């Protein structure tokens, strides 16, 4: 066990955990930030996506000891009132079915738009391809990303 000072959603938080614990489980079990989801544990499904700085990162294979003082943003911290353009677009398009993967989708999409405010269809597909939606809401996700990119402009 070791003590880690993490910068999560603009707050400095301290956790005691095994250094090999993936950030995912630190967020979920230690910090009670359960919006970040467990899907596969091997960075294949994207449900656990958070931002490390501005970069969409799979938290299930990122050990807590490797995070350091980098800024971590989870779905809970993406915006104060759920009014990030991507969140608003998701609501407007009414994307979710079961909803489980959507936090990860939103975190990947918001990181994409930060880097590339007006992505093409192909760029959206490429960037989002690591996020599985088992319900098959892909067409709506693309629509919402495009809507958010327009509201960004």
């Amino acid at each position: 066990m070791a003590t880690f000072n993490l910068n999560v959603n603009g707050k400095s938080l301290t956790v005691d955990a095994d250094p090999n614990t993936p950030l995912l489980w630190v967020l979920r079990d230690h910090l009670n930030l359960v919006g970040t989801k467990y899907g596969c544990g091997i960075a294949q499904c994207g449900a656990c996506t958070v931002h490390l700085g501005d970069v969409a990162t799979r938290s299930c294979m990122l050990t807590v000891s490797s995070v350091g003082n980098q800024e971590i943003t989870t779905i809970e911290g993406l915006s104060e009132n759920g009014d990030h353009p991507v969140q608003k677009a998701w609501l407007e398009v009414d994307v979710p079915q079961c909803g489980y993967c959507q936090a990860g989708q939103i975190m990947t999409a918001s990181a994409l738009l930060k880097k590339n405010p007006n992505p093409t269809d192909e760029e959206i597909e490429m960037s989002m391809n690591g996020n599985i939606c088992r319900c098959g809401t892909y067409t709506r996700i693309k629509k919402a990303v495009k809507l958010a990119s327009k509201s960004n402009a």
Partner: protein
Amino acid sequence: MTLIKTQIGRRAFIKNTSLASGGLILGFSMLNACKPKQAETMAALEMPEEWFEMNGYLKIGDNGVVTILSPNPEIGQNVKTSMPMIVADELDIDWSQVIVEQAPLNTKLYSWQVAGGSRSISSSWQGLRMAGATARHLLKEAAAQAWQVPVSEISAVAGMLTHEASGNSAGYGEMASAASKLEVPEEIELKEQSEFTIIGTSRKNVDGKKIVTGQPLFGLDVQREGMLIATVAHPPAFGMTLKSFDASSAKQMPGIKDVFSIKVYEDDFKRSTFHHTAFNEVVVVLGETTWQVMQAKKAVQIEWEKAPDRTYGMTMFGNDMTVNHPAGMENSASHKEKMEAMSARPGRVVRRDGNPEAAFANAAKVIERSYSCPFLAHNTMEPMNFFAHVTEGHAELLGPTQTPEWMETAIAARLDLPLDKVDIMMTRQGGGFGRRLYGHFMVEAALISKQAKAPVKLVYSREEDMTQGIYRPAYYATYRAALDENNNMVAFHVKTGGIPESPLFANRFPAGALDNYLAEDWTIESNITTGAFRAPRSNFIAGAEQSFLDEVAEASGKDPIQFRLDLLQRAQQHPVGERNDYEADRYAGVLEMVREKSGWDQGATGRHRGVSAYFCHNSYVAQVLDVIMEGNEPKVDRVCVAIDCGIVVNPDAATNMAEGGTVDGIGQAMYSAMTFKDGVPEEKNFDRYRLIRHAEAPKSIDVHFVDNGKDPTGLGEPPFPPVMGALANALYKATGRRVYHQPFITDRPPLVG
């Protein structure tokens, strides 16, 4: 106006008279505890000081805010929005004044609290409407009494009661207390479809804001004071069972509280098929955090041994059946050989019309083709999990289940508790697809909590989830068509089976459309457990049949849509047999609609189109799928969907469901498979188990609904099976080569030379 007896499901309307004096509603304490937060995130509605229960489905606050309880499990099919919409419409309340809450399992108040068979809306259609209409009627009665005027002169619209002649008016909240004390009438008036104001209009997902902001909603998100986390280890292969384990080092690991084994069901417990599990003894690792228990599990030294032949006496919907699990370690390669061998032998004749043998013997031409599909894992994005808190004489369970009622009996039996001491509450669920119809993990969670004497959340790892069984069976089908010298189809023969069940629907189309028809089936036993997977059996047979008919249409020189319509016309005008279980005119209706909406007759340059249509869950779906070639790679570009599922409650959400079913069907048929080597599932996680991803999904999906005013039928499943046929037919147009064996991505001719 439709008059209906409130006797139907009347127990849902029995009012607790002890509440009448105080008026304040009680019960559902767990929900009440959540209420302020719920209200805050819903629509910032001001909460009432008092709630008045009108019936088991709704309560009205003194300020007019209405809480509607959604009885069925929410697995992504959006019933948590659409079921309350039905209640709200008949109540005639502004939707913005509605708070939706998930109802707990309550067999006294509700029936069919199941997410299965695409039946949530259809089986509750009248009950939900009655719930709203009854409350509305009682509010009108209360107003009539208060104002001393005839009830027939009171109008109730959008939460307001009005008596025009006297100029009296009041909000529902003002009359809720008085209304809650009135007797439920014997009969109640329901609205005509033309009077609906909410049903048939698109309303957004009631949990949408919580989903996009990452609020706790799912079973895996449950947190409780003093809660421990558990995970389980089951045998690594079907055909194996637990022999012994050594947990001495695992128990020394940080955060680990205990390691023990549990026996899920007692030997003498008569399981239903929904209780079943391949692995009745599992090793449990109990600890403080999820990561700790998942790590410690790897450190438990477990010895497995080969399981003997096993026979289970089971029930399925009250019918007794015997399920054999033969000993041995099975392989996908030998599965295929066994299925081919069975298909070459005579099967069990399920339906025979006319003289198919003679028709085939005299045919000018016989077309014969075989199709197959592999086992599939459901792979809900949220792995199996459940919270349980078992104390002396009581069990509380909370989590994702599609069948709380069916599991309650098993949990009560295993804990030796009466049914009323087992309380089950549902969370939102990260997908179902049939997997959560099989709730052995609920029994496991309860047993672990009992042993731990603590509240426990059981969490399956992805690998444990994917290798546990309850798969979509593997199926195989051989079709034959006899053509006369004019290339007319004069006989049709299907012989099909699977491991361990047959996917045959002998009375579905094209049965009824042909004078000579033969349907046979067969089964092969296995120790690999299988279960319902979105549109069970249809999820294979639809695609196989629709691919085959495409080939027959081509051989007949007919347009594939017209070919089907001609058969349906025959089935409608001169049906063969009396047990055909589809309505030919509705079937034809979706085909005609998809022909028009997709611009089928106009053709499309550069597009390779396939069509398919199927009937299941009392609904009709036709799809036209367009493939375009990108270099040598076929890509699904667009799908046009026509659906007849009767009245559509929430059109945009229904469209979402149809889009999802279409994507899911393309994905499963094209990419997914679960294979076995010596009993071991070879795909354990999403690195080897391929699911459809963004870049493989269609660019656009257009969904159209038939507007016929018929009572609603299923929607969660029907758009899923037929698209597999449309995909196969479009791939043929694009590549010139037909695909027969799923997943299509691996159905390639062997390399020669």
